[in-house]
């Protein structure tokens, strides 16, 4: 029997592997809700419903519901921030010019602009950078 944690709540698991969807079901989390698994010394990994995960003792998972401290980079500098935070809060924290746009890097897809008034779920290892809002043609 192995013990894993989802949002810091302990679950004893007999199986050696579980699907992402099974993990969410076990924790009573909506299938559409984002869940991440903490990976030692690496960025968090997003749990995909259809993927299989090896169940190891003391594995930690976190959903969007849980607010924790994560380490992200903003313009190449590391910051420890709340996992739920607005675009404006990030700008203030990193002393980013308020006129600039914040962007979160997304693997294999277009990067995601972060709006000032919107709350975002950040994960460990997220890379955020700023771009100027004013681009001069010519």
């Amino acid at each position, binding site marked *: 029997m192995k013990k894993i944690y989802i949002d810091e709540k302990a679950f004893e698991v007999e199986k050696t592997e579980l699907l992402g969807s099974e993990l969410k079901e076990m924790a009573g989390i909506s299938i559409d809700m984002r869940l991440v698994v903490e990976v030692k010394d690496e960025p968090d990994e997003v749990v995909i419903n259809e993927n299989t995960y090896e169940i190891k003792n003391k594995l930690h998972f976190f959903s969007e519901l849980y607010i924790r401290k994560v380490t992200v980079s903003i*313009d*190449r*500098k590391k910051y420890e921030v709340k996992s739920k935070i607005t675009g404006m809060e990030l700008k203030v924290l990193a002393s980013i010019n308020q006129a600039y746009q914040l*962007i979160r*890097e997304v*693997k*294999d897809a*277009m*990067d995601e602009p972060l709006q000032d008034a919107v709350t975002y779920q950040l994960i460990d290892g997220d*890379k955020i*950078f*700023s*771009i*100027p809002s*004013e*681009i*001069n*043609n*010519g």
Partner: protein
Amino acid sequence: MNLPEEDITYLQSKGIDFEIIDRPNGLDIILKDYNISDNFTTDKVDVLVKVPAGYPMAQLDMFWVHPEVYVKSTGLKPPQADVMENIDNLNWQRFSRHYRWETTFTLATHINVINKSLR
């Protein structure tokens, strides 16, 4: 000159096919078969970014595309993108796009500026 590791990681994480060409005063990066908006007459171009030797202290500025693109709705070249430059025997269309450079900016910043310009 070498491109910083984080820039290479960024390009790789995007699945972008790219080529780096050493130049006397820096290097050129060519992003190959880069998808652009369907507002233009072609949906894929090669994009060239010139990286000066002093980068990232020195800024990234402008970008070039090949083949040239026209705006579908007008049939014209995009604003301030009407200059053609011969680079390695190919005609590249220069997009004059300038912004205030911060030394914390990276290639990711410039690529997002390029994306905005090619929307």
